[in-house]
């Protein structure tokens, strides 16, 4: 772990192409440690691609990205030790596993001591009811699956937590419960959280600092409240940013 940087995330000219299509175009961004940072954009703007580059899932076509000072291309294992990722679809993949089995799998991959105890602690932390922990995840509600995903992402005490649209598909109570959970985690775990969403209300509620991405390019980086004092003003400003681009 590099102690020499103040930034949890550093991107310098990150570009990612898929053939002729440029999904992320020369994104440069620095996120200080310990922030709950918002990453806002429309569907297809490049949010997920950016997260996938930062979490070593996708190599950048050009540019340099570092997490906690570790290059995502040159030191993928070091980066993976530092990150946790909650994606909106991965929880569907192992529907025939129980939450305990799912988390134990990752606890053992991380060589955590007392994996069973750790799993129970994490499930306590995200608030998954004990009666459901031994049942197949395919029987869970979307909110419960998302809790399990967050528990997995928190495993090994990550320094940077990437949340890719963590509340998509959740109903309002579940969404608010999830927000409350994220706030609590940010405080309790002191983890830098990179929250990607197209939900302006969510971003505005949770994050003080944000970046806005449109068609692969960053169009705004700064304080959330600078975009508007209330949600309406915030959203109008966002629409202006997004439509003026390109």
């Amino acid at each position: 772990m590099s102690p020499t940087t103040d930034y949890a995330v550093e991107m310098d000219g990150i570009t990612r192409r898929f053939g002729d299509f440029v999904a992320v175009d020369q994104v440069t961004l620095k996120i200080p440690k310990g922030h709950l940072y918002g990453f806002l954009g429309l569907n297809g703007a490049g949010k997920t691609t950016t997260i996938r580059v930062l979490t070593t899932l996708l190599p950048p076509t050009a540019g340099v990205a570092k997490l906690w000072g570790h290059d995502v291309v040159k030191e993928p294992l070091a980066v993976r030790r530092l990150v946790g990722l909650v994606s909106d679809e991965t929880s569907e993949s192992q529907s025939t596993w129980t939450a305990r089995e799912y988390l134990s799998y990752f606890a053992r991959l991380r060589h955590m001591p007392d994996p069973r105890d750790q799993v129970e602690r994490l499930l306590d932390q995200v608030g998954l009811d004990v009666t459901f922990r031994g049942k197949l995840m395919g029987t869970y509600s979307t909110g419960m699956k998302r809790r399990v995903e967050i528990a997995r992402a928190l495993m090994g005490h990550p320094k940077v937590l990437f949340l890719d649209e963590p509340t998509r598909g959740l109903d309002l109570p579940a969404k608010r419960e999830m927000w409350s959970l994220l706030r609590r985690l940010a405080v309790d775990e002191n983890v830098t959280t990179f929250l990607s969403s197209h939900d302006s209300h969510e971003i505005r509620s949770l994050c003080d600092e944000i970046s806005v991405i449109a068609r692969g390019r960053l169009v705004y980086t700064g304080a959330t409240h600078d975009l508007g004092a209330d949600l309406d003003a915030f959203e109008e400003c966002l629409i202006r940013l997004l439509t003026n681009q390109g």
Partner: protein
Amino acid sequence: MTMAISVATLYAEELKATMRGRFAWLGAAVILLAVGGLATVGTQDTWLDGYGIIAYGLVPLGFIPVAAGMIASPRANRFVECVFTAPVNRRDWLAAKFLVLVTLAAAYYMALVPMMLVYTWHVGLPALLQEFLIWTPGLLIASIAVGTLIGVLFIGRSLAAPTGTGMGVLLAYAGLIPLQELMVSQGNGATRSGHLTLASPAVLLKNALGFTLAASSIPATTRLTWISLLVIVIGALALAAWVFLRAQGVETWEATRRQRWTIAIAIAAMIVLPVMFADTNYDNPAPHANNAPAIRGLFSRAGTSMALVPPGGKPPLRCCSTILNRDEWPLGTDERTARDLLLLLPVETTNRVTDLHTKIAGEVGLNVTADAEALVQAAPRLEMRTYANDSGPAAADGHHVVTGWMVRIPVTLDPTKPWDIGGDRYPLTVTATYQIAGENLPRTFSARAAVDAQVSSAIYEMGFAASILPLFCIGCALVRWRRTR
């Protein structure tokens, strides 16, 4: 050391994960039940020709789509996103996946052992089974290698493409086995089409080990065949690893133009090199599969002039198959079975038969004892038999007997030293001389046929052996269902 620990952990977790699939245990039970059921039914005929080819040849090739699916699945369902945001090295993960596949293959191989033990307990270890015991692990490894390559090549959200391709390759590889046997049997093993059959690792390994399933000749040399086989197996594994680690990301193709050409050429080489260079000098005689007597000609469509019936029984309506007991249960090996042997003399009942002398000789372990008086009869006890539609035996003048004499000889049959657990056909030769009233010289009756025998207890023993592991799998499925519902 760190890598070994990492691979070991990944291997253990992935192995456990494999059996967490919705129908993993039940699926294993169904496959083992099917294979075991085939082994049990196979006791009723030549076991290795039926069950053996499927269990030791075709099912191992089934690991092609299995491997393709298992490698492609974590990408299709995006589980790799979770795995590779944990501190997991992709090289270790691929190695662990490969080891899991090898473990499943080994488990399948071990699952065949109870049935094999029942078989060898009764008939020993015939040459073909010895070859199968080497052929099968070879096929399993080759199938895993090819399946892994297919699984790596197909990146996508659907498993249909990799498993479908795996199925296609499986069918091609399996279909080339009988094609090659046929072509070699016809002397066309070295033609262009004959060469094409060498694209199948199953055919290559069969040639390399020097055995056949039906053909009568094997290649005189095997060096290039072994090399071709290694090109496929090592080539597929090496290419899969290289593509996975160097030409792909976690879920995306990252290959350069040069890498794409390299991959295409490597795949083409794995198909073309064996076809072009593997040995096709089919000049050596194939070894015998077992100790079965070479009596193929006996079982042609032609009938015979004798029948085997229960003591005092009527002759069969359709007469007479060269397998004397084809329409009834096979005889039990190492058991004495009383029957009446009926000789259908080509003599009309208008003629009188005297001085009948009969010799009955069982072969290859078939002991036949007959009533001594019945074999030597001055005035044989004759029965009349009427034949319909010219189905009677041909008389000396060529006409088919319409109402002829039939001789009944009580015999006891004891087939011993079986060479297979079922479908043992023991040859039986009967020669008889008899005198027709008014003729100077005695006539000769000669017939050759066979009796079908099997190890009579084998079906029960095989059924028991075949049900142990499926029941275990069903038990595991039930336990998991109860635990997680």
